[in-house]
C-alpha cells in the first residue's frame, strides 16, 4: 500500500514517468485545491486551470528539484505563484479582487468565541471575513493553520522574510476580528 515518497516520484517524473505524476496529483490535489479555493475566491474554472498549470510546472521542473526545500513547500511555492499569476490575469480582464484596503481600526478587536449555539453563524461570518482579506493575508493563514507549515516554510512559499510572515499572520488575525466586529455592529444596528 505504499505511496512512493515524493522525492522518488519526482525522480521518476524527471525521467518522464507519467504515472508518477499522476500519483503525485492524486496525493496532493485535495490539499492544493483547498488552498487554491480560498486563493481564487472559489472560482472553479480558475482553480482547475491553476491545478493544471501547477502539475504541468512540476512535470517540467521535477529535474530541477534539488531537495533544498521540503517537497510540500516546493509544491506550494509553485501553486502560490500560479495563483498569483491567475489573479493578476483575471484582474487585467477586469474581474475584481476583494480586499480590505486599510488596517483595521484600533480598538475594534473583540473576542471571537461566543456561545456554542452561535457556532454555525459565527463560522459563516468568519468565512465571509476570511474572503474579504487580501489574498496575501488569506494565504498566510491558510499555510499556517490549514496546511501546517512552519514560519520558515511559509516564508519560503511566499517568497518573503520570516518576519513578514509573522507580521502578516498577526495582521490577518486583527483584520479578521475587525471584519467580524463590523459585521456584529451592523447586525446590532439592524436589530435595534
Amino acid at each position, binding site marked *: 500500500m505504499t505511496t512512493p515518497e515524493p522525492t522518488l516520484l519526482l525522480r521518476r517524473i524527471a525521467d518522464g514517468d507519467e504515472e508518477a505524476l499522476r500519483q503525485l496529483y492524486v496525493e496532493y490535489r485535495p490539499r492544493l*485545491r483547498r488552498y487554491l479555493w480560498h486563493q481564487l475566491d472559489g472560482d472553479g474554472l480558475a482553480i482547475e486551470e491553476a491545478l493544471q498549470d501547477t502539475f504541468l510546472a512540476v512535470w*517540467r521542473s521535477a529535474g530541477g528539484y534539488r531537495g533544498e526545500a521540503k517537497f510540500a513547500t516546493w509544491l506550494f511555492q509553485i501553486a502560490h505563484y500560479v495563483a498569483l499569476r491567475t489573479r493578476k490575469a483575471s484582474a487585467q480582464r477586469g474581474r475584481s479582487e476583494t480586499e480590505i484596503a486599510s488596517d483595521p481600526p484600533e480598538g475594534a478587536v473583540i473576542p*471571537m468565541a461566543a456561545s456554542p449555539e452561535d457556532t454555525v453563524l459565527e*463560522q459563516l461570518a468568519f468565512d465571509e471575513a476570511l474572503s474579504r482579506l487580501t489574498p496575501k493575508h488569506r494565504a498566510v493563514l491558510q499555510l499556517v493553520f490549514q496546511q501546517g507549515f512552519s514560519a520558515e516554510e511559509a516564508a519560503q512559499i511566499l517568497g518573503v522574510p520570516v518576519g513578514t510572515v509573522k507580521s502578516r499572520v498577526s495582521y490577518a488575525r486583527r483584520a479578521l476580528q475587525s471584519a467580524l466586529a463590523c459585521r456584529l455592529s451592523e447586525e446590532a444596528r439592524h436589530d435595534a
Partner: protein
Amino acid sequence: MTPDLSCERHQDSLPWYVTNSLSDGERAEMERHLASCERCRAALDEWRDVAAAMRRADENIPPDTASLTTWARIAHQLGAQAEPAYKSSKVNERNIMGLKDRIVRLVPNTRATTEAAEGARPRGPLRRAMDVVAVVAVIALSVGVFGFLAGRGGGSSRGKDAVAAQPACATSKATVSLPANASLLAIAAEGANDGWAAGTIWDDKSPTSPPAALLVHLRNCHWAPVGTPIPNVQLTDISMASPDDGWAVGATMKLDTTPMADGAPRNAWEPSQPFALHYTHGSWQQVNLPSYPGAKAMQVKMVSANEGWMLLYSGKRLITTNGDTSVGYGNALLHYQNGTWANFPMSFLKPSTGLADMDARQPGEVWLAGFDNTYSQPNIVAHYIGGKWTTYIGTAIAAGANIQTISEISPTDVWAAGSASSSGSSLYHFDGARWSAAKVQGVPKKEAAYFRPFINTIVMTSPTQGWAFGFYMSLKPTRTIRVALRYDHGAWQYTEPQIHGTTIYAPLSAFAQTTPSQGWALGDHLIDNGANAERVLLYYDAGVWGAVRQQS
C-alpha cells in the same frame, strides 16, 4: 520593558505553538512563559479560535468533481511537454491512490519513442476508463492452467505437532531462495518455524511475458518457493487462519493489447478476475470466486478457518451523477462463511470512496479504512459489528489526516494511521468510543519540528506491541527519513531502521511477528544508483533489522 519585549517575541510564535510546529525547546520555553503571562494566555485563546475557524472554513468547499477531467487535460498536454526517457509500464495499474500496492521497481520504457505520438489519445484515468469498457472480452483462461499446487514443503503430514518438534528458527539465521524477478507483497507467520509469503514473478523487461503467482514457504529456517508458479496470475495478499488453513489472493491477469494512437499494442497487464487459493490438507487449491470482471483481490483477512474477508478493487473509473463526473474506486467486499465467498454489502460506500486497508480479528466483525475525496476531510473508517456499519469520517478521527492503514486488536482497541493530521499526529487510536491522536516519543530533538510522518503500514501484534512504518521529510539538511515506530506498552517509540548500516529504503510493509522479539517484513532499497528499488525479505531480531540472506 523586558516583559513586554518577551511578550512580543512569544506572541509572534503563538500561531505555530497552536499548530504544534515549534521545536521541543521553543515549545517548552513558550509554556514556561504562558504559565506566567496572562496577556499571552489571552492571545493564545484568540489564536486557537482562529485556528479552529480556519479548519472549519474548508468544510464549506464543495465536493471535488473535476479531478479526473483536469487530470485528463494534464495528461493530454504531457506528450507535448517532455521527452520521456523512462516510463513505468507495468507499474501503471499497480500504484494508484496508494492502495495496498507496494511495487516500486521502474522499468525502461520499451515504447518511449511512441509516447509523443500518443498525446492525442486520452491517457491515464480516462483511457483506463475506456479500457475498462474494452475489457468485455475477458479471456477465459483454462482452469486447468491454474492446476493444483502441491505444497513442496506443505505435505499433508505437516501440522502443529510436527512444527513444534523443529528447533525454533531465529529470523536472523534464515535464508531465502527466490527466483529472478520475484516480488513479494505479503507475508504471514505461524510461529517461529512456519511462514508463508505471496507475490508475483514478473519480468519487467519483457512487457508481454505473463506474470506468475508465487508462494514462498518457510521451512527448516529457509524460505523457498512451493509448487510451480501459476502463469497469468498475480498474488497480492495472504492470510493464514492456522498453520493448516489459509488463503492467498490476487487476480488472474490478461494482456491488454488495445492499439494506441500509433497502432502499437498497449501491452499492459490488467486484472481480469479476482483469484484465490485455499491452503487446506497440506496443499494449495484454486477456489472459484463470484465474478467481478476487471477486479483484483487486494487483501484477505481470515478470522478463522470458517470465516474471513476479502477486499476487491477494480480500479478507478469515471462516474457521472446528475451531470457531474467524478472518480469512483470500485471496491467490493467478500465474506467467507460456510465454505463460500459471497458479496457483502457496504451500505456506507459511495462510488467516490476508496478503501485502502482492512483488518478483522473477531467473528462477524471487520474494519475498513480509506478516503473519500468528496469530503473536505477525506479520511473514512468503517466498522461492521453487530449486523450494521458504523462510519467515522473526517474530524471524527483527526482533522486533516488521510488514513492509509488500520490494525485491530479488539473492537475497543484499534489503531489507524496515515498522513499527519493538522495537529501533526499520524497515529490514531480508537478505544470503542472515540478516536484520539497518539504522540511519538524519542523523536530526535533536531527533527521534532519536521516530524510529520506518513505511515503506510501499521501492524499491531498484541495490545501492547506493534509497528508503524513510514517516512517523513526533514530539513537542515533536506532528506527523507524512514521510520519504524515501535509501540511498546502504551507508548510509540521513534526508530530509524537500518540494514547493514544503511537506512532501509522502505517504507517497510507487511510485518509478521514470530516471537515478541522477532519477525519478518518486506522492504525496498534503492539499486542502480537510485533508478530502481528492489524488494527484499527482511528479518527483525531483537532490535536489529536485516535482509534475509539469499541462497543461490
